[in-house]
Every structure is written in C-alpha cells, then in structure tokens.
C-alpha cells in the first residue's frame, strides 16, 4: 500500500497545470467573463487532444487508458484554473457521445436537482437525453457568470454516472479550494495595514490556516475515493470538497476586504462556481444521508459478525 502519487501521476498533474497556465490564465478567464462565451471551442479541442476527456477510455477505443486516480488529479487542476464548461459531463460522455473524447463535442448533463440545466445552450448533446434539441428550454439569469442556466420541463439525472460525476466534481472543488487559499495567502502577504502585512495578524493567519486544513482534508478524501471507488468515500469526498470550496472562497473574500467584494477580484468567480458544483450530482444533504446509511449498515454488520 502506498497512498502517495507515483512519479507518473505527479508528472501528469504538472503537465495539465502547465497547459492550463499557458492556455487559460487570468486574462483568458476575465475575457470569458466579459464576452459571456463560457465554452471556448478551441480550448475544448486542445483539452481533448491532451487526453483530458479520453483519459479513462481504454487505449483500444482511442483513449489514454488511465483510471479515476489520474482523472481526479487533472480535474483538480481544471478546478484550480476555474476552467468553465461541462468538463465532467463531457468526460463521462467520452466513448458514448461522438466527439466527446476528442473534445470536438460539448456534452452537458442534467446533474442539478429540479428543472435547471447548465450549459444547455452551448451543448451539442446532453448525457442520457437523446433528442434534447427539441426539448423546450427557457434561459434564466445565472448567479455564476460562467455557468449559463436553462429551465427545462423534464430532464432526468443520468443515474449511472452519479458517483463518478460527484467524485470528479469534488476534484474540481478541491482544486478551487487550494487556489483560493493561494490567492488569500498571497494577498495577506502583500497588502499592508497599520504599517505591516495583514498576514502578520493572527485573525488573518487563522483564517488562512483553517483554509489549508479544509483543503487538505478534502483533497485527501477525493484521492482516497478515487482509489477505492467506494460510494460512501465518494459521498464524503463530495461533502468535504463542496464545503472546502465554498468556505475557502468566502474566507478568501474576507481576507481581501473591500477588494474581495468587487467584480474585479476573481474570488467571486470561485465562490459562485463552488455554489454551482455543490448543487451538482450529489448535494450535502444527499451525501450525509448516504453516509449515515453506510455507517449504520457497517455498525449493524459488525455486531452480527461478532456478538458482544
């Protein structure tokens, strides 16, 4: 047993980080906010060429043939860079929807509760919903400027993909939580008040320390769930990563003070996306109920196995 990432896994993560730093840095992010074009088709294709969507497809089917542990590492990087678009759904559609694996098709999923679907208008397909183009859909204003939403009469959640969707979304959340921690620490080290960097004040330090604790626990939970594929560990990963992404974004905003409340700072983009992802695939309430059932089942089994 060796829980640490292998050399190859580290290299893969570093490669994706470099690709995204060059291709979707801060200027590109702000340009998509200004233009309102959330899915950049060229970037989507480049991600496809780099194997982002075909990562877990067998080599015989033109994929990279890697597993969930590798997938969470690259999704963590996408979360860090705040890449918009239905990354998880397109990845899950690889091999099933033509063009998804190569990144020439944009595939979304009805992964939110109720009648809202993200990226409906930009998608070429909806996972598990053939003929979606003829389904009536009403655009609504979205809280996240980079996640457009439509209200749709009925679009059932693709059940088969629920655990994998939740895990990959959790990996995006963990990446975002680590990124907002970096933004907060950098700002706290630079911004001066009362003649010294605000990061020298315990009140600010302790916010940052708690952000690290949340992010590290979430990241570990995501990696573990990717390795074991256990549904309860996956639920825990989603629960902890949602919380880490949302609360870290809020604490990052607080560390930025008045600047944090402006459109100009990136932190609101992380917070709004974290809110979207927290509603996708598996909510906190669903995760907690699933975990409770798993806890009770294990506890009862233990007693039955070994009468006390």
């Amino acid at each position: 047993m060796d829980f640490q990432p292998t050399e190859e896994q580290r290299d893969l993560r570093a490669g994706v980080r470099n690709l995204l730093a060059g291709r979707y840095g801060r200027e590109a992010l702000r340009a998509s906010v200004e233009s309102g074009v959330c899915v950049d088709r060229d970037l989507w294709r480049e991600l496809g060429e780099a194997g982002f969507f075909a990562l877990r497809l067998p080599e015989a089917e033109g994929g990279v043939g890697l597993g969930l542990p590798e997938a969470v590492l690259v999704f963590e990087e996408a979360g860090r860079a705040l890449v918009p678009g239905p990354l998880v759904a397109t990845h899950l559609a690889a091999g099933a929807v033509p063009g998804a694996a190569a990144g020439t098709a944009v595939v979304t999923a009805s992964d939110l509760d109720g009648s809202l679907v993200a990226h409906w208008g930009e998608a070429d397909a909806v996972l598990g919903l053939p003929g979606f183009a003829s389904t009536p859909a009403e655009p609504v204003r979205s809280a996240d400027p980079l996640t457009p939403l439509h209200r749709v009469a009925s679009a059932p959640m693709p059940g088969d993909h629920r655990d994998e969707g939740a895990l990959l979304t959790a990996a995006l959340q963990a990446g975002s939580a680590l990124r907002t921690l970096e933004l907060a620490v950098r700002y706290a080290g630079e911004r001066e008040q009362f003649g010294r960097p605000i990061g020298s004040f315990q009140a600010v330090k302790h916010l940052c320390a708690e952000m690290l604790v949340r992010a590290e626990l979430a990241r570990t939970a995501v990696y573990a769930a990717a390795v074991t594929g256990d549904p309860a560990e996956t639920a825990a990963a989603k629960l902890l990563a949602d919380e880490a992404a949302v609360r870290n974004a809020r604490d990052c905003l607080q560390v930025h003070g008045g600047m944090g409340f402006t459109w100009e700072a990136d932190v609101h983009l992380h917070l709004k996306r974290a809110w979207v992802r927290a509603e996708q695939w598996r909510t906190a309430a669903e995760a907690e109920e699933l975990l409770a059932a798993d806890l009770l089942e294990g506890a009862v089994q233990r007693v039955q196995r070994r009468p006390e």
Partner: protein
Amino acid sequence: MDLTPTEEEREFRARLREWLAKVLPELPAKPSPDDWPGRRAYDAGWQRRLYDAGYAGLHWPVDAGGQGAGPTRHLIFLEETERAGAPYVGANFVGLLHAGPTIAAEGTAAQRARWLPPVLRGDEVWCQGFSEPGAGSDLAALRTRAVRDGDEYVVTGSKIWTSHAEVADWCELLVRTTPVGPDTPKHRGITWLAMPMDAPGVTVRPLRTLAGSTEFAEMFLDEVRVPVGNRVGAEDDGWRVTMVTLSFERGTAFVGEVVACRRTLGDLARTAKANGRWDDPVVRRALGRLHGEFGALWRLTQWNVGESERSGGVPGIGGSVFKLAYSHARQELYDVAAQVLGAGSLVLDEEWVLDRLSSLSYTIAAGTSQIQRNIVAERILGLPKGR
C-alpha cells in the same frame, strides 16, 4: 496512489487478528480510572504481551529494539487492535509515542539501549515535563533552571499538566541551561533531559480535571540532580530536539484514536437507531457527516505516515494540520453523542459522558488550536511572523 494491501500485509493482519482473539479473553478486568497503580500494572501487562508476541515497537528501528516494519504495519496494528477492543497504550503513551521515538531519532547508542527496551516491554513508564505555570503555549518561555555541577545538572523549578506523573519512572524534561539575555533568545539555551522520577527533590501533586479525575499533576523540582549522560542532544540544543518530540506528538500520537472514534460512531448509530433519535434527520445527518470526516481523517493519516516515511521517519509539519482537524472533530463527535443520549448525557455513568468531558482537552493539550494555526500559517503557508 494505491491502497490495496500487499500479500504480506494481508497475512500480517490475519495473524494479528487470530492472536488477538486468543489473548483478549485472558486479560484481567480493567481497573477503575482513578486507580493509578492498577492502571499502570494493567497497561504494563498488555504492553508485555505485545512485546513477547513481537508486536511492540512495530515501526521502531531494529537497533532501537523495534521490529523495523513499515508504517503500514503499524496502521494495520492500530486498526485491528481497536476493532478487537484491545487496550490502548494507556500509561505508556509518553514513552511509546513521544519520548521513545525522540530517543530513537536523537539519542546515542547507549541511550537507546538503556531506555528503549524497557519502554517496549512495559517495564518503565514516562511522563512529559514540558509545560510550566506561566509558560504553557509559550513553551520556550520555560524557567526551570539546570546548573551544571561536575557531571550532573542541578534542576530547580516546576512543571504542570504532567499526565501519569504519579506512576512514571522517567520524565522527558525541558530545562533552561542558559538564561535568556540580550544575546540569547528564549529558544536557545534549552536542554532536553531524561530525569528519574525517584530522584531526591521531585515532588508530585495530583491535579483534578473538570472530568473529576486526577489525570495529570503538578511537579516541583528542588535541586534535583540529573547526570549529564541523561541529556538527549547537545546542551542548549533542546529546542530542536523538542521539535522532534512535538512532531511525533502531533503527527502520530493520535493516530490510534481516530480508529477508536470510528468505532464509537458505529456504536452511536446503533444506539440512535434503538432509542429513536435516528429518525431525527438533524442527528442522523450529523452522524453521517462525522462518518465522512473520520474516514477522511484516517486517509489523511495514511497520507501523512507515507510522507514521513519517505522523509526519514520523523513526521512532518502536516501533523499540525491533522491535529487541528482531529481535535475539533473529536469534540463534535461527543456533542453529537449528547444529542443521541438526550438528557441521558447529564448522567456521568452513561457511556460517552466522561469521554465528552475529556475531549475538551483536545484543543488545548499538545499545543492549543490557536498555536497550531500559527504554526500552519507561518511554517506551511509562509505568512509573516507577527502578533
């Protein structure tokens, strides 16, 4: 990233499980919490059984009397002993979890040979003389003085919050060998000594905790003579040695307790199911959340242990991250237990009520959460020192 056990690890687990099933029914009854000599004898008896069966010091180096097995073996050992309801380290915790590993990492060959085997056999019990009145979290502000006299140090001062002092044979003692001055910052001038508790001039006075127990004590040191040969590390270099001790204390000492918490959670779920509290979604979901959190804490442990193994066996600064998350989760666990018990949580004899009270120490002992946050912020995140 691989969590699959190897064939050897599987065999080790099976052998251990079989052994536990055989020896646990033979154990004597547990003494009452305030019967200190009884507790010491009970814990020593268990440690001796582990030693004789080759399970003591599993992950300690062979030349320190250990088995030289990888850290994964140790984690399997903790999982299985907890699952079987075996005794935990008890009165041996400072020797096995703090002082022993420190001596294994920093002591001379003679010191390792003198002190480590008796710890592994359960023959000698250690306590920790770090905290002082007026200098708890500000550990380096300690004032207990040691003056060199020939080949002995003469120690005068006092210590506080010393767990198991009443039954200990040895104390890992921090003393000031050079006074704080304009050229000597308080972190310099500290020395790490092994002090025999039966030396003339050592007085121990028990302190009563809010749980009603005499879990720890005050210790008064009046011209206690400690041989220079009992010094671990160089004179005035004790702060560095202390950091090694603290990294074990924060990095690995609580590991076994995470498994115990997971077991308690299962018991809580069954109790809640039986008494109807399970039907309250607030209680049920709180239990579910803790199940997820403690599962992740166990994975974080596996992560940290693997990382420390790669960097030479001394746990890294990540121990502070673990300790912060763990100590708060543990308190939350017993608050949820109180929700499951309802008014029953007011009855001291109910299961978990004493544990709830003692969990209050977890965010204070071994460095308060506030100190841990400073450490994380300054030493991991690189934020500037300040106030």
